């Protein structure tokens, strides 16, 4: 493009053009299999200019951005970075040019605080930060947010998960802006969740940084903002450049006209022979999550399109119709069987372990069942019928579904829907990533279904496909904004309606909950309260508990559980679970009582080796992608075996120094209490204050974000496991101090108890969210329950029941508060 379009040169850009382009992409092709995402696309980026990248759905914008950010390499074409030709943009070029991208699908670790998400990116990869770095980073993050979004009110110490969508978007944008050597900023739909006021702030920020020489690529469906802030508009269509414009010389209408150009889907002669029959789907002022005042009707014998910009509520509408298939829903009546065909084949379509046959037949099992058994012959007959009719490119119906191309997989999914005999066929973007020929086959299938009197509802992100529909509903921000029928169904009209402004819906940013409410919802409340209450109950039942010696006694039995649970916590932080720590504590118990008590040095080495084994286990789980639950289960045999080799029968003794240490105190405080407080403080520091703690928590939450930030995921996981191993060593050490001997079989209960403690302590089993202080408190609480039950002379066996009830109670309580929070 460049010089060939002199009419587009604005004064500012002209000045810029005298410079060498920052980045030059010429004649770029990118294909995925047989799908051509880009063909001969060009893009030139000069320092200090703001490029508005626009184009209809599926034009290839995202692919182009992925090439620029080095996520993908082009199939063909020339890329020049500052005049130097490169095969692909590598991490080195990304760093050298200072390319930063604010992703549409946010790339934040949601369990980390806002400032930590910044810090994880821009701090060097050493283990320790300078003293007070957190304060400095917090101030830095606040300043950054305040600079670009004045008055944003975001508390940077809060985890990202507590922010509203708009706040997250601001954080994401600032994260991209933070790049020190920023040279090219890419904003992908940056204002989709922002209010008008915030969008204005972003626009000034964009202008401000472009003045400093930073180039900006601004992708948006909102043409008004494109015209407001861009120096140059690059229009992409069907994977190639469809023109370059000066925003001051072109109106939105003209842009829309060009975008909805002449491409036509092969005319299926919309034969009017099919009888439009009874209404099968009828929604009247339907309101639900993501949908507002939807009124649509679908009759048998017609194809109805659902269109609009990506993410305007089309999928929500399809799923609402599918969800209402059994019975009625407020405002939505569905008559007849419904089949849903998803274009997200891997995510919600195919069953990857199965053959084509099974994938086609899964929705029509009832029709081939006789006397309760599947009739294989009949089943094969039905599948074969569709296999022949749809002309699959595969050996036979028994070929695995994964051997098919995306388009052929899609045909199998459509065959599944048709074979089920559904009256209503819902298709969610069925031609995504499908080659032209297969697309045509799919259109033919739909036309046949229509002729057979079925109702077809088609949502597609490719606007041209709407031309095969009899009627089209166009959606915008969860509402139906236009209905097109008959001759009015043209790409032109669809695009125009898609870009139509809705009455400015209030996008009020929700106020963050108050500090007090935050404190009440803290994960610490429950375990700490449990500990205090159970201790108080103990004291009420038996006032002697308040004496120092009794406290020592009570706590000394709690300490091993506290450490066991902390070990479990580090593994839960990584998103895994340790099912073998019962025997691993038994092993460390043996190592301490048999080896360490005899020879300190050998014992120490053996314990260090043990911690190494835990780290290796973490590495194995990550590298071979094994399920942690099974590996740790298997590993416990190994722990048990080693322990039995060392100590075939219970024996050994607690080292003298250990016993005297355990029975000592610090300023009248019994050592077990000191240990609990100390370990709570240390693990809290490791998790929340240590620089590397960010990584330890991050890996359980968002693997991509960690890897993108340059930290090693593998090392992070191994450190988590090693810390867990260290905690297991301490658990074994103090278990020896309590029992005075080694017996690998007495510690089995720690496994279940530690998991229970971790849950009560406020950790999330899904990973990333842990609470060391809560775990310590919960460990003490769980241990005190036993003594309480003994004091009140309840069958001590009931402790097991109490533990089970506590877990269920805690989870139920957490569910309730979470539900309340999501309603508010």
């Amino acid at each position: 493009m460049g010089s060939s379009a002199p009419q587009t040169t604005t004064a500012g850009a002209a000045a810029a053009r005298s410079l060498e382009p920052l980045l030059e992409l010429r004649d770029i092709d990118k294909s995925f299999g047989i799908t051509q995402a880009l063909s001969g696309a060009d893009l030139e980026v000069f320092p200090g200019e703001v490029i508005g990248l626009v184009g209809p759905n599926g034009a290839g914008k995202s692919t182009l951005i992925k090439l620029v950010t080095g996520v993908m390499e082009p199939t063909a074409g020339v890329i020049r970075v500052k005049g130097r030709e490169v095969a692909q943009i590598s991490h080195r070029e990304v760093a050298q040019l200072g390319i930063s991208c604010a992703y549409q699908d946010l790339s934040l670790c949601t369990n980390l605080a806002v400032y930590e998400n910044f810090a994880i990116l821009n701090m060097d990869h050493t283990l320790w930060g300078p003293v007070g770095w957190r304060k400095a980073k917090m101030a830095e993050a606040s300043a950054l947010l305040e600079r670009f979004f004045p008055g944003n009110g975001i508390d940077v110490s809060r985890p990202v998960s507590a922010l509203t969508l708009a706040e997250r978007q601001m954080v994401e944008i600032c994260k991209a802006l933070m790049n020190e050597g920023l040279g090219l900023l890419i904003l992908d739909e940056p204002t989709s969740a922002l209010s008008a006021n915030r969008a204005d702030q972003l626009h000034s920020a964009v202008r401000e940084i472009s003045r400093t020489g930073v180039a900006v690529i601004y992708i948006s469906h909102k043409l008004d903002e494109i015209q407001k802030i861009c120096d140059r508009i690059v229009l992409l269509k069907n994977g190639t450049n469809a023109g370059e414009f000066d925003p001051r010389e072109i109106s939105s209408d003209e842009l829309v006209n060009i975008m909805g150009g002449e491409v036509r889907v092969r005319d299926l002669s919309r034969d009017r022979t099919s009888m439009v029959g009874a209404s099968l789907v009828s929604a009247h002022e339907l309101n639900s999550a993501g949908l507002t005042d939807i009124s649509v009707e679908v009759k048998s014998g017609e194809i109805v399109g659902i269109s609009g910009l990506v993410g305007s509520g089309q999928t929500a509408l399809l799923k609402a119709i599918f969800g209402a298939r059994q019975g009625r829903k407020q405002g939505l009546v569905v008559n007849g069987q419904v089949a849903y065909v998803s274009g997200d084949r891997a995510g919600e379509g195919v069953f990857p372990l199965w053959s084509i046959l099974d994938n086609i037949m899964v929705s029509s099992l009832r029709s081939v069942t006789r006397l309760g058994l599947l009739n294989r012959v009949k089943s094969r007959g039905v599948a074969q019928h569709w296999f022949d009719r749809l002309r699959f490119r595969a050996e036979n119906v028994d070929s695995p579904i994964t051997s098919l191309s995306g388009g052929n997989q899609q045909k199998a999914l459509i065959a599944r829907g048709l074979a089920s005999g559904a009256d209503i066929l819902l298709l969610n973007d069925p031609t995504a990533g499908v080659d032209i020929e297969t697309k045509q086959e799919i259109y033919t299938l739909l036309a046949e279904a229509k002729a057979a009197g079925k109702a077809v509802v088609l949502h597609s992100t490719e606007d041209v496909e709407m031309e095969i529909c009899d009627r089209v509903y166009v959606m915008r921000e969860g509402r139906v904004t236009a209905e097109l029928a008959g001759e009015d169904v043209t790409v032109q009209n669809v695009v125009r309606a898609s870009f139509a402004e809705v009455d400015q819906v209030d996008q009020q940013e929700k106020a963050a909950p108050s500090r007090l409410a935050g404190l009440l919802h803290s994960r610490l409340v429950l375990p700490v309260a449990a500990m205090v209450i159970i201790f108080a109950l103990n004291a009420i039942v038996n006032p002697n508990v308040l004496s120092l010696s009794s406290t020592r006694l009570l706590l000394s039995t709690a300490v091993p559980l506290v450490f066991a649970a902390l070990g479990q916590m580090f593994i839960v932080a990584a998103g895994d679970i340790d099912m073998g720590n019962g025997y691993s504590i038994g092993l460390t118990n043996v190592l301490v009582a048999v080896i360490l008590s005899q020879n300190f040095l050998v014992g120490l080495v053996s314990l260090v080796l043990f911690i190494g084994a835990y780290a290796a286990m973490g590495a194995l789980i990550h590298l071979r992608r094994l399920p942690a639950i099974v590996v740790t289960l298997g590993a416990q045999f190994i722990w048990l075996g080693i322990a039995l080799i060392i100590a075939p029968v219970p024996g050994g003794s607690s080292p003298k120094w250990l016993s005297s240490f355990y029975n000592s105190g610090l300023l009248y405080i019994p050592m077990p209490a000191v240990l609990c407080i100390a370990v709570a403080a240390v693990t809290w520091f490791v998790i929340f204050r240590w620089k590397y703690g960010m990584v330890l928590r991050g890996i359980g939450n968002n693997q991509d974000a960690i890897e993108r930030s340059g930290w090693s995921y593998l090392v992070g996981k191994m450190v988590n496991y090693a810390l867990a191993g260290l905690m297991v060593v301490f658990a074994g050490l103090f278990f020896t101090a309590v029992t005075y001997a080694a017996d690998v079989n007495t510690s089995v209960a720690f496994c279940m108890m530690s998991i229970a403690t971790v849950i009560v302590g406020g950790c999330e089993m899904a990973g990333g969210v842990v609470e060391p202080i809560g775990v310590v408190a919960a460990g003490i609480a769980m241990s005190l329950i036993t003594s309480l039950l003994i004091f009140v002379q309840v069958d001590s066996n009931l402790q097991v029941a109490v533990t089970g009830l506590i877990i269920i109670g805690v989870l139920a309580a957490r569910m309730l508060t979470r539900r309340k929070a999501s309603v508010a």
Partner: protein
Amino acid sequence: MNRVAEFARRHPAIWPILGCLVFFVLIGGLTGSIDPTVVFTAARLATFAALLGLAQMIVVTSGDGAIDLSQVYVLTLCAYASTTLMDINPVLGFIAAVLIGGLAGLLNGLINIYLKVPAMVTTLATGYLYFSVVLVGSSHMKVLPQQDFVTLVTGSVGPVSNQTILVAVVALILAVVLYRTSYGKQLHAVGQNRTAASLAGIPTPRVVITAFVTGGLLSGLAGVVAAAVMGGAFQDMGLAYFLPSVAATFVGGTAASGGRSSVLGVAFGALMMTLMSSFLNTAENTFDLVSGIKQLIMGAFLVLILFVSVAGTKRRRGRVGTVSTLKPSAAS
């Protein structure tokens, strides 16, 4: 070479069957004679690992990281229930005791699906509950098994124990249900991808809960038989079977992420674990091994076989607590 790999992939049962052969030969090598009674004895001893392993297989196959940790407690609970109830009426008592297992499974499934508590945590908690019923109630319950029933389960047809016949019958029924009925297809679909299954019109919640109930029924059956075989119920009777049964489940070719099962594989997996155990016992006696070597070899072997079989499937790791985007329709 490729053919062989493909065959192994399609029939995961060949691994444990090969393993059985290897250990059978090894035992023969140690004792100096190939004695088929070794196999029959091992098959009898494998009864409980097999029943629990099959039960676990069904739950794990439902996918989404599902696993039932309460099994061994259900086994113990049903053992006590059987000794108590069969004292009143042998037949009705038997049925009632097994049904208690099903009820326990139902509770697990309901909590997992409708309270959205991850299966592992759910069954951990309910396991505590079932066990505490045992702990509190055991002093009021009868522990001795019904004598006629004992005669029945400890009997044998030729060299084949009645228990082995029971396992074979159960395995056959399960194979028919899992591979020849629409429920079986639905279970495997749900296990591969719950969202896709719901969108394909499968009543996902019902399928998963049924899996838990079936698992509970099988655990219950194992408990009832165990009480008879072991001469009564006792509090820790289930614990010894936890590891062999879980090992049998995964060694037998059950995908940890769900959606793939092998009745034959798990049954032979249980047999293999028992043969491995007998082999190590024999070796221990023959060579006067240090105790513990047995467990060490067992553990190393297990991790190794996982390393080979599970990792080879290259699938997304089953994540506990994944929430499907589509609400289960039955929930509304």
